[in-house]
């Protein structure tokens, strides 16, 4: 089989952890967009879900920071954060060990990967899963891209990761869904938390959904840092999904700046079918 679904969404911890502080007239449409994405994902009858995320010093630290890492366990646990802080109860999440192993082996023809047989999911994975697989019954293959700080993997390598994942999925019997999660512009957990550059976000989303590789790879980290904050480095996860969906455009299902969630909240899908 192959990839049967590809999309991108936000993962900010405030989406679940600070939901009571948000304006419901903006928050509830976001939640409905996640519901729509869940329904669309389920309609493709996936056997597993790859989530390309950008974790935040949950498992990986500067003593041994992988540029890319793929989970290879038969189960995971999350959230690693305080349950009340995130608003998500800790639980076990099914993995797909054999699928992970096969994907990693295949992807490494093109892109070097680290792998991990232990992985505690942080909000970067748990917030999307909370909405998209609320019964936690879909095996997950977590993929991490270091987006936390320099030295950062160049954007063209992220696009290449997406391409390689697509090729690897095509070699598998399973039906596989893919989600990339991250912020666009945001300055999370800093004095500027809540600042959102909506114009920058919308410009990026236009390029992402047009899926023009050259436009996406033209972003420079110094400009991103200045215009979109350190959280903007997470465009790597979205660009990987663009690589996996190369040749296909996408559709924006939701975008709105929600300052208490500290990000321009986004739900979008790529038209890969």
């Amino acid at each position: 089989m192959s990839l049967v679904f590809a999309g991108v969404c936000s993962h900010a911890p405030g989406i679940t952890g600070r939901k009571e502080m948000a304006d419901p007239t903006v928050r509830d449409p976001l939640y409905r967009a996640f519901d729509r994405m869940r329904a669309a994902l389920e309609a493709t009858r996936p056997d597993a879900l790859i989530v390309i995320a950008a974790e935040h010093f949950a498992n990986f630290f500067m003593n041994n920071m992988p540029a890319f890492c793929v989970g290879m366990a038969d189960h995971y646990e999350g959230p690693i954060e305080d349950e009340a802080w995130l608003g998500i109860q800790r639980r076990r999440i099914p993995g797909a060990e054999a699928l992970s192993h096969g994907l990693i082996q295949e992807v490494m023809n093109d892109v070097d990967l680290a792998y991990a047989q232990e992985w505690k999911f942080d909000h970067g994975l748990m917030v999307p899963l909370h909405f998209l697989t609320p019964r936690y019954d879909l095996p997950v293959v977590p993929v991490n891209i270091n987006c936390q700080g320099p030295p950062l993997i160049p954007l063209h390598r992220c696009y290449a990761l997406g391409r390689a994942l697509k090729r690897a999925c095509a070699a598998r019997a399973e039906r596989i869904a893919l989600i990339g999660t991250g912020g666009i512009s945001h300055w999370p957990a800093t004095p500027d938390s809540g600042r959102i550059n909506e114009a920058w976000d919308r410009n990026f989303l236009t390029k992402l959904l047009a899926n023009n590789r050259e436009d996406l790879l033209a972003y420079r980290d110094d400009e991103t840092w200045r215009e979109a904050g350190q959280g903007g480095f997470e465009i790597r996860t979205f660009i990987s999904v663009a690589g996996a969906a190369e040749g296909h455009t996408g559709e924006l299902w939701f975008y709105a700046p929600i300052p208490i969630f500290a990000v321009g909240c986004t739900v979008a899908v790529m038209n890969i079918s």
Partner: protein
Amino acid sequence: MSLYSVQKLLFHLNRDPRVRRCFDEDFEGLLTEYELSQEERAAVRQPDLGLLYVMGVNGQILMHYAALRGYEWRAYIEALREGERRYGPVRAGLYTRAEGR
């Protein structure tokens, strides 16, 4: 300056139950396990979240230490702002910016 060590201590506190137990039972002993300057040790101990931020501690690490020390979200953000007012711009790490804010 041992920003790496400060961040490593807070990373362990956030993620490692054994280190969390040390925090509860022998905080001073735990502090000696990391190569910290006097200023860093004091900032962690107090805690002075604003100073830790100005030293360059990444917010994705610092926000969990803030929660551990009882700071709700808005109080955490305000503590960082107060840190900048009191100690000046961020000195090192990801948030240093030549042009200021």
